[in-house]
C-alpha cells in the first residue's frame, strides 16, 4: 500500500498546477469548481440523492414504498442486511456474479485488443472491416437477444433417452456436429438438464460478444492517436511485432485499457440483462430456475416486495465493487503510463 502513496506523491510533483506562482494557484482552484459545477449539480440531484435515499431504505426493515403510501411504518435496524446475507442462495448468486466477471473481462479485453491491433495493421478493406465492427451499434438490442437464444436452443423434449424427439439442436450444435464429423453430437447448452458449466460458457460467449464493439471502439480510438513515429522507430530497429505490441502498443494504450478493464469490472458485477436475454426472467434453465441469478437479479427480485432488502443488497454489491475498483485503480496507478 505504500506504493500507492509513493506514486501519488510523484504524480503530484509532476502536475501542472504545482506552479510556483500562488496567484495562479488560487485562481485555478476556483476555476476548477466552475468547470465542474454543472456536473456536480446534476449528480447531486440525480445520483447522490438517490444513493442517500437507498441508504435510508436499507435501514428500514422490510421497507416497501407501496406500503409506505398506505400508511405503514417501518422499524429501524440492520435486519435487511442480515436477512440478505443469511439467504441460502446468496453465496451462489455472489459466486456466479464473480465467476462471470473474472472470465469475461480479460477475455473480451484481450480479444478487442487483438482485433483493434489487427485492424490498425492492415490497409486494403480496412475501412470496410472497421465499419463492420461498428455495425452492432445500429443493431437494436431486441434483435440481438432473440438471435442468441435461437442459436443455442435445442427444440424438443429431451432427457437423453431414445424415445424423445429432438427437433433442432440449434445452429451451434449443428456446427459442432459438422466439425466433429459426428452428426448426432450435441451439447445441451441452455435447456432443461443442462450443466452449470455449459450455461456459464454460453453466458461468457454472449457477454464477450456484447462487450466487444464498445471495447474495440475505445481501443481503436486510442490506437489511432498513438504516434506513428514510435512504430517507425521500432521498424528501423528491427523490433519484432510481438515485442512492438508489448513494448509500444500496450503501454501507449494503457490508459484506454485501464478504462475498459475498470468499467468492465464495474459492469460485470452488475451483469443482469444478458442473462435475462438468454434464459428469460427465470434466470436459469428450465427446471433449475435462478441457477444463474446474479447480484442485480437478486436486487430486482426483491425490489417489488421489499425495497429495504433490495437496498441492502445493493449496498453490499456497492461495497464489493468499491473494493475491486480500488484494487484496479491501485494496479493501474502502478502500471498505466501517461
Amino acid at each position, binding site marked *: *500500500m*505504500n506504493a*500507492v*502513496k509513493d506514486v*501519488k506523491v510523484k504524480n503530484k510533483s509532476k502536475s501542472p498546477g504545482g506552479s510556483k506562482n500562488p496567484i495562479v494557484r488560487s485562481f485555478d482552484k476556483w476555476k476548477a469548481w466552475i468547470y465542474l459545477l454543472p456536473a456536480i449539480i446534476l449528480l447531486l440531484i440525480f445520483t447522490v440523492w438517490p444513493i*442517500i435515499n437507498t*441508504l*435510508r431504505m436499507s*435501514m*428500514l*426493515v*422490510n421497507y*416497501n*414504498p*407501496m*406500503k*409506505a*403510501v*398506505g*400508511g*405503514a*411504518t*417501518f*422499524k*429501524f435496524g440492520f435486519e435487511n442486511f442480515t*436477512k440478505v446475507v443469511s*439467504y*441460502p442462495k446468496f453465496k451462489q448468486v455472489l459466486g456466479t456474479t464473480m465467476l462471470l466477471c473474472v472470465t469475461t473481462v480479460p477475455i473480451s479485453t484481450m480479444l478487442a485488443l487483438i482485433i483493434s491491433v489487427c485492424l490498425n495493421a492492415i490497409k486494403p478493406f480496412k475501412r470496410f472491416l472497421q465499419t463492420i465492427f461498428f455495425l452492432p451499434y445500429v443493431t437494436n438490442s431486441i434483435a440481438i437477444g432473440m438471435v442468441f437464444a435461437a442459436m443455442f*436452443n*435445442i*427444440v*424438443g*423434449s429431451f*432427457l437423453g*433417452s431414445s*424415445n*424423445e*424427439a429432438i*427437433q433442432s439442436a440449434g445452429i451451434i450444435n449443428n456446427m459442432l456436429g459438422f466439425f466433429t464429423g459426428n452428426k448426432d453430437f450435441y451439447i445441451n447448452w*441452455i*435447456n*432443461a*438438464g443442462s450443466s452449470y458449466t455449459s450455461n456459464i460458457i454460453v453466458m461468457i460467449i454472449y457477454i464477450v460478444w456484447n462487450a466487444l464493439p464498445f471495447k474495440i471502439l475505445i481501443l481503436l480510438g486510442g490506437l489511432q492517436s498513438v504516434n506513428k513515429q514510435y512504430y517507425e522507430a521500432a521498424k528501423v530497429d528491427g523490433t519484432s511485432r510481438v515485442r512492438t505490441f508489448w513494448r509500444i502498443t500496450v503501454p501507449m494504450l494503457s490508459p484506454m485499457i485501464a478504462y475498459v478493464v475498470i468499467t468492465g469490472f464495474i459492469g460485470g458485477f452488475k451483469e443482469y440483462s444478458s442473462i435475462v436475454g438468454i434464459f428469460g*426472467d*427465470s434466470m436459469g434453465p*428450465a*427446471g*433449475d*430456475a*435462478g441457477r444463474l441469478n446474479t447480484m442485480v437479479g437478486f436486487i430486482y*427480485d*426483491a425490489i*417489488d*416486495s*421489499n425495497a429495504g432488502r433490495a437496498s441492502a443488497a445493493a449496498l453490499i454489491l456497492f461495497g464489493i465493487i468499491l473494493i475491486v475498483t*480500488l484494487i484496479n485503480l491501485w494496479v493501474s496507478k502502478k502500471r498505466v503510463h501517461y
Partner: protein
Amino acid sequence: MKKLCIFLAILTAISASLLAFAGCGASATPTPDSTPSATAPATQAQPTVTPDPPAEKGYDGSEVTIRFYHTMGQPLQEILNQYIEEFNTYYPNIHIDHSQVGGYDDVRNQIKTEITVGDQPNLAYCYPDHVALYNDADAVQKLDSLIGSKAEVTRADGSKEIMGLTEEQLADYVETYWEEGKVYGDGLTYTVPFSKSTEFLFYNKTFFEQNHLTVPATWDEMYALCKKIKEINPNCIPLGVDSEANWFITMCEQSGSTYTSASSPHFLFNNETNRAFVKEFNKWYSEGLVTTQGLLGNYTSNIFVEQTSYMSIGSSGGTSHQKPEKVDGVSPFEVGIAQIPQVNPAKPKAISQGPSIVIFKEGKKITEQQVYASWLFVKFLTTSAAFQADFSRVSGYFPVIKSVNTDPVYTSYLEKADGFDYLQALAVKVGVELADSYYTSPAFVGSSDARDEVGRLFVKCLTITQNVDSGIESAFEEAITECEYRFE
C-alpha cells in the same frame, strides 16, 4: 493512501449521519392507528370504515378527464375509440385519455411507481395480483357502495340512470367472472371483469378421426390416449402444455388440494396430493408423453401445428397460434377445441384469465368526481352488449355478460365457428359454454411469486430421473422456503 483514507472516512461519516437521519425519519412518522407492515389493507377486513364516496351522491356533469391504462393493440383501440364516442354522447364532459402502456407487467410496474407519488391513473387493466399490490398502498376503490348506489345521474340527452347496477345488469355478468373481483380475502368487490380467457385442449381433429381416437375427459383417459398415440407415432410427443404454472394451479383446484390462501399462512402447496400428481406427470414425461414450454424450449403450439404433437393445452387468447399454416391454400388438418382434462368431470375446473378493470380511489390527484366518472365508464363498457360483442370478435377473448347473445352480428359470427378459418369463433363459442368451470386463485402480495415458483417447481420435478420421491420432496420444500423468504 492518505487520500484513500480521507475518502473512506468521508464515506463512513456520510453513512453514519444518514443512518441517524433515517432513524429519526422512521421514528417520527408513526401514526396512532398504524398497523405493522405485514398487514395489508386487504386483510384488515374493515369494510365499514372505508372512506367510499357517499352512496347518495353521483356524477354531477362536471368536466373531468379519465386516464385509462391498458394493453390493447391497435385494432382493439379502434373499437374502444368507437365506443368512447358513444359514451360521450351521454356524458360529453367525461374525457377518456387511454393509452397502451405495454404488456400486463408493464401496466403494473408503471402504476406501482406512479402510486408512490400519487400520480396513478383512474382506470387500469389488471390481474388479481396487481390489485393485491395496489392494495398495499390502499389505492383501490372498493366498488360495493358504487354498485349499490341508487343516486340518479342525468345524461346529456336528458334521460336518467342510476349510478349503481340494476338487478338485471348485475345478473347479466357471468357469475364466475364476477366472483374474480372478490378474491382479496374480505368478500368485497375490487374489480369489474372486462374480457376473459381460459385454457383449452386443442387437438388435431383430423388425426383423431383417422385413428378413431376420442377426446379425453379425465387425466386417466389422457394417459391411456397418449400411450396409444405414442404407439401410432413413436417420434411424436402426444401432448404439449404451454404454461407449467397454470397446469400446477389447475391440478390443485381440480384435486381439491390446497395451493395458496389470501390469509396467512399463504403458501400451502406442499402437500401429499400435489406431490402425488407431480410424481404421476414425472412418469409421463419420462415416457415421452408430454412436454411443456419450458422443457421444449419453444411454444408447444409450434410443434402442434407442425404435427409433431397432436394435443396442446394453451390459452384461448393464443388460439390463432394453434392454427396450422395453409399449404397451397389448404389447411393440413382440422383443429378441435375441448375442455382441458379433469380429475373429476362432474366438477370441472379451468383457470380464468384475462383482464379486469380496477378503479383507483380519491387521492392526491384523483377527485371524487373522477371516481364517479370512471365508474360510469366501466359500467358502460361492461354492460354494453354491443361493445362486449365487438371486443370479443376482434380479440378472441370471451365477453363477460350473457346478453351478448342478443347481438345479431355476434351470433352470426359464432355460427361460422369451425376448425379451420373460424377457429377463433370456435374458441369463443366453446369458452362461453364452459363458463361455469372457471376459477380464480386467491390474490395477495406474493401470489405472483407463488405462481412463478410452482411453475419452476413443476418443471424441475418433471426432469428428476433418480430418487424421484425424495427429489420431489426437497424441490417442494425449497419452493416453499423461497416463497416465504420473499414474502416476509
